[in-house]
């Protein structure tokens, strides 16, 4: 039976000596673990100071015992536990070979994140949630050999939290990456969301996508108009997610009139301060 389970430490457990070094042993000693196919790893103690590297290394060391895991989420914690940009991630290089039957990997946090040389014939979904995605990680995904990848969601974020690229970085990424089975693309949580909308709409993946996710960013009517104009040319796209945005009500109505499923919830108004317009992406404020 498929089972999802989250393993995390709270303050008391951390005070009593739990930490990243004890996480894998605790997971393996759980009698339910053999039934857990969806493994979620949350706060590992002082996640802002201690990397999860030892967790990743010990998963690799005990790879046979993790072979039944189909979905892995490392860093599932909210702002109550740790700022996303403060989560100290790790190097995933060894994981690709160690877990050959993994279908889905979700990583939260991009500090110290290294994905390494990605080659995994079975992985179907890759999600990186962060406040700023470094170009180094984008390039690792760009060079990835993921022939079965169907879903890719990348939180782009902002410079302050690690995004050191531009719209051209994403343009290049979409041109050079090769995911023949990709049907769900998320390029989200950006403060240049309108520019990224254009880049995505001009990409080769538009012909194969079923779900387009441009949510959680500073999408305005400029990006909305591009979507309105371009999406009818791609009847393969059946779902558009633009929730958390700065479009006008009029634009929301126009998008919702498209013959596809549209999520345009969480509309925000830009703020004006001393003559300047301020907007922020979801995970940057």
């Amino acid at each position: 039976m498929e089972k999802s389970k989250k393993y995390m430490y709270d303050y008391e457990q951390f005070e009593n000596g739990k930490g990243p070094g004890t996480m894998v042993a605790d997971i393996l000693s759980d009698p339910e673990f053999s039934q857990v196919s969806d493994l979620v790893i949350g706060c590992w103690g002082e996640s802002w100071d201690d990397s999860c590297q030892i967790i990743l290394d010990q998963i690799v060391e005990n790879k046979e015992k993790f072979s039944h895991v189909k979905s892995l989420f490392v860093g599932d914690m909210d702002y109550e536990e740790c700022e996303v940009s403060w989560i100290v991630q790790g190097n995933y290089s060894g994981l690709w070979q160690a877990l050959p039957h993994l279908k889905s990997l979700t990583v939260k946090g991009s500090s110290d994140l290294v994905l390494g040389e990605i080659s995994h014939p079975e992985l179907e979904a890759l999600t990186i949630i962060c406040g700023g995605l470094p170009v180094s990680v984008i390039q690792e995904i760009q060079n990835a050999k993921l022939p079965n990848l169907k879903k890719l969601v990348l939180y782009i974020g902002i410079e302050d939290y690690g995004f050191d690229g531009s719209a051209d970085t994403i343009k290049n990424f979409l041109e050079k990456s090769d995911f023949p089975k990709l049907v769900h693309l998320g390029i989200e949580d950006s403060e240049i969301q309108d520019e990224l909308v254009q880049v995505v709409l001009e990409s080769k993946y538009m012909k194969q996508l079923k779900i387009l996710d441009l949510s959680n960013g500073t999408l305005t009517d400029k990006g909305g108009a591009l979507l309105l104009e371009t999406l009818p040319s791609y009847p393969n796209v059946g779902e558009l997610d633009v929730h958390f945005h700065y479009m006008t009500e009029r634009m929301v109505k126009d998008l919702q009139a498209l013959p596809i499923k549209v999520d345009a919830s969480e509309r925000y108004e830009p703020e004006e301060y001393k003559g300047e317009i301020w907007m922020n992406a979801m995970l940057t404020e």
Partner: protein
Amino acid sequence: MRQAAVLGSPGTKRAIYLKKGAEAAGISVRLLDWKEFPFRYTAAWEDLFVKIDPPLWESCCLDELNVLAQDYKKKLQWLAELGKKQQITFLNRPEDISALLDKKGCKIRLAEAGIPVTEELEGSRRADMSSGRNAAAAGTAGMPADRSPAGAGPAEMLLYAMEQHRVFQVFIKPVCGSGAAGTAAFRWLPSSGQMILYTCAIEDPETGRMVNTKRLRRFTDRKQVLSMIGRLLELDCIVERWYAKAEHSGFSYDLRAVVQNGTPDFILARLSSGPITNLHLNNHPLKGEELGLPDRVMEEVEQLCIRAAGCYPELQSAGIDILLEKGSLRPRIIEMNGQGDLIYQDIYDQNRIYLHQAEIMKEWLYKI
């Protein structure tokens, strides 16, 4: 002849819904208007049962919090003295309402009774250093006073205390505040120097005074954060460890329970997409039972609230804020309020809280 009265403000939800509760219980309740304070004709207050609602405060300037609180305490003192002289019966005695305005004092009393509270960070204020107060009483680990940095300002003192205790996220709350006024959630990463401050307080650009708003903001500029923390700590503040709160549907939440005469009449979850949960901040409220918590957790919360209310035995109606730690769902009392009985989800539904108060009044009215 015995009479029941509410000392409050006409037209407020508290007054309106207590009146509805009284009507349902078949009694009438006089309204004594705070505007009349100090009351000149108190001879008629004999044989009176009084419920005291909070007066209406209009200031949003945080530096006035203490003055307003002190003024209110004086009024409560006046009422306490009158109560003794005229043998007035109170739903909640003015002395208890006054005691609960002091978050620090309440925390100490609860901790002394062995009740888990959100722990205070000792040594974060200059006053802690000089008072030599028994830190263990408030469930904290004290910091030796002689190791405090010489000449440090309040913000530096806080950073020093955080480093000493290895507590890198705290809540800063004015001792006398209410409605999230002046409350701030502060997080610091010493290894990189990064700081984040969540607060509804801002510095008014025109007057330079710290004012409260109803919007939660996030500040990350170190200089600005330290300046704001310094300004907040200049108010009389309590600094507590920031525990990761439980979440429901992607929102973190805490609980507000209303315990009356030993019975938990209502438990409300205050869901929020930010670290500060408060009913004044337009957070999303949910009835406690809708959280789908295991029965043992709700029972533990109820028992804890009953024990906490028991620390103030004369208090017949207590609003109690409870935090459930993320993961373990272990409850801790955040604070108590002698006037924390207004819950919209109740007044617009069964009005159980005010009906219970009316029943308490009725019992007193017909007591032989």
